């Protein structure tokens, strides 16, 4: 009988260890922390937004800008990883290519930065008073 685990056996052991690790963390915290619940504390954490209510909530548009820029560089990393694995074999040409690739993306970042898209401008809180959208005001500043 083969004493070594199969490939799936390895994965299974890894999975079990993961579960034990997370469960152990929660258990330790439960035992150590004081417990004084209130409604705010017991609600689910949703990045500062109301977790329960209408789905038609206005998000600040800047979330998207940040998210998009994040994704762009995220994807860049995805491309750079395989490049990096064979970097030695590729030689100088590939280095230039990667720099061009990164350069284009950095140009985009610079563009967004200079245009002020990365400035986090707080929306004016007194929404009901003004008929024209405060967001448009801020947009015009940004433009």
């Amino acid at each position, binding site marked *: 009988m083969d004493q070594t685990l199969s490939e799936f056996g390895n994965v299974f052991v890894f999975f079990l260890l993961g579960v034990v690790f997370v469960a152990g963390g929660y258990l330790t915290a439960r035992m150590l922390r004081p417990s004084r619940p209130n409604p705010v504390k017991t609600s689910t954490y949703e990045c500062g937004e109301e977790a329960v209510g209408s789905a038609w909530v206005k998000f600040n548009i800047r979330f998207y800008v940040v998210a998009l820029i994040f994704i762009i560089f995220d994807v860049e990393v995805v491309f750079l990883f395989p490049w990096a694995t064979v970097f030695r*074999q590729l030689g100088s040409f590939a280095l230039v290519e990667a720099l061009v690739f990164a350069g284009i993306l950095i140009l985009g970042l610079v563009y967004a930065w200079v245009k002020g898209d990365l400035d986090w401008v707080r929306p004016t809180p007194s929404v009901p008073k003004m008929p024209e959208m405060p967001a448009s005001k801020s947009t015009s500043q940004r433009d």
Partner: protein
Amino acid sequence: MFELPSGAEIQSIISILKSGLGFFIPEIYLSILFMGLIILDLALKGRNKSGILGWATLIGLGGSFYFIAQQHAMQAGEHFFGMYVLDEYAIFFKYFFVASGMFAVVATLADRKFDAEVKSIGEYYALVVAMVIGMVMMAAASDLLMIFLAMELVSLSAYILSGYFKRDARSSEAALKYLVYGAVSSGLMLYGFSLIYGMTAETNILKISMELADHGYDPLVMILATLLIMAGFGYKIGAFPFHFWSPDVYEGAPTPITAYLSVASKAAGFALLLRFFYIAVPHGVSPYEDILGIDWLTLLVIMSVASMIYGNVVAIWQKNVKRLLAYSSIAHAGYLLLGVIVMDEIGTQAVLFYLLSYFLMNYAAFYVVVLISNRTGSETLDDYRGLGSKMPLAGAALTVFLISLVGLPPTVGFIGKLMIFSALLSKGALYIWLALIGVLTSVISLYYYMLIPLNMFLRESLEPNEKSLNPGFLAQLMMAVLMILTIWFGLFFEPLSEFARYSSAMFGLSLY
């Protein structure tokens, strides 16, 4: 497990990529231009920024002609592992799209609405250039992935451009509709691509063709794939029943962009359609007894006939000139599809020639529409009343362009239709009725096109304001030149038709 390629393999890959770059110079140039424009936008300050950017774009695009012209000397062939081809057909469209981009810039420079509506014009020109790049790549792409990427580049640029008047509700609505519709169409097309890939395990259209010919296919899957791909192409060319976005988008988008979309984007769609259907879809000896036993003809014929009828008939009811031209562009897609149906050299030549003539007359017509709307602030038919006396040259020029769009001699539009119909008739009696429908619907188009000159010259203005509206010397000159060209090429069309014939050669085409 993933295995690392050996050093030699990687070196050979790199050498292939390096050699491919030599055939990719215009695209690289255009990409640099795109980035340069962004940098210029960031660097420039001051009042004349918009004008400088526009002229820079114009000059930059003009410069690309040099690099494109270099490519005539190069051997036709595949590059980048079959991703991309270089042939006369692609070069034709490179010229075409760069010129379209330049014309869009010219129209933008002429359009006063941009001064009022837009604070930041930098991205605009950059996006025009980006769209040119995308369309150039569409015309040259020979791989499903490349096709999809190029189309998306074009589409994304077009979404932004059509919504460029942010405060104009119609413009925003147009952009949103365009986005949703485009996303659906792209998704359908991608699904079709995936089915083809599933059948053949290839993405290169030439290899797909060979694979299908060699190993057969499941007709049902093939049909489904083709239909789904057709949805994507149909969306680009704006043919019935995939046209629905176009009237709303054309009406809402800034007029130069409307013109740009209606000419360049449509042409890109046709470039792709012709290449895909001629190469990827295998054909037998005679185009319609193809080995797949699938009746492509019916698909294209229905699209073509429906587009001609729908576009022309609905255009009759339009009150807005831009919307009217939008419907007319649907009809023109139908006429162009007639040329595709022919599926031979003459048909390709006719399509290319028609695209050239359509380029000239449609851009020119939109240009005049821009000039008029600069003065009147309106694009509705009623506001064209009495303009003939206030803007005589514009009125005359628009009349000439519209006559050309109808397809009456002695204009270039007439020759275009003539070539399409004669290409059809040369294929035999089967196509007579198609040509007949084409001619009859042209007659319908006469009615609504001529409504514009009717309003301009024969009806009194609603406001008794009789001051003449001079669009300026440069604009006048431009109109005159376009008008002369429209008629000139209607009389001496030999160079254009020769160019179209010369450019109808496609790499890897085994149709004949």
